[in-house]
């Protein structure tokens, strides 16, 4: 699964820590998601999309190996 979190973060100019605080997870979790090391839950995906004011589909994308 590919993600655009880093890009969206840059648009809002917020750090991983700030984003983590807004969606109620740890900074390490955001880091793991950004690096594609962790497939997050639907609830968290929806929360992230809400912060960036985009849809989940705009934030995450299936990859060949999924």
């Amino acid at each position, binding site marked *: 699964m590919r993600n655009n979190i880093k890009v969206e973060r840059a648009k809002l100019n917020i750090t*991983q820590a700030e984003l983590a605080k807004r969606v109620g*997870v*740890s900074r*390490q979790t955001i*880091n*793991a998601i950004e*690096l594609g090391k*962790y497939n997050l*839950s639907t609830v*968290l995906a929806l929360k992230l999309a809400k912060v960036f004011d985009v849809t989940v589909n705009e934030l995450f994308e299936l990859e060949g190996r999924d």
Partner: protein
Amino acid sequence: MKSYLLPHSLKKIGWILLLLGMILGLLFFFGLSYEIFEVKVFSVYADPLFGTDSVFDVIEDDIMGEIAGVLVVFGAMFTSFSKIRNEDEYIAKLRVDSLVWATYLNAALLVLGLIFVYGMSFLAVMLFNMFAALLFFVIRFHFMLFKLNKTISDEE
């Protein structure tokens, strides 16, 4: 979602219980005994080496091993099944993965013990096996947490 985890406050207590249990358990394993542990206890079933069997009876026994075992079990559960300070879904995944990993390792060691250890020494394998899965879990989970906290972000 429903969580089966224990409150965060039990984590520290868990470490203390685990440490005490391990020390007491090792002393017991190496044959030390203390008079204060010789007490009368209620037993559902007992069949001592010398003497008669008893059912639902009060017997006299050295309960050092029993105390150590209970402390280790509660300690291990409290340390690893209580919420950490910043508990979230990724931590939950690490916890479950660690549990699976510990079960595999424990099963592998148990099979080795079953195949290669015979006679009275097998009792030691069983004794170890009673607590090994929990202990492997505690170690693995906290190692993963340690590694996680060390990851440096790739931030601006």
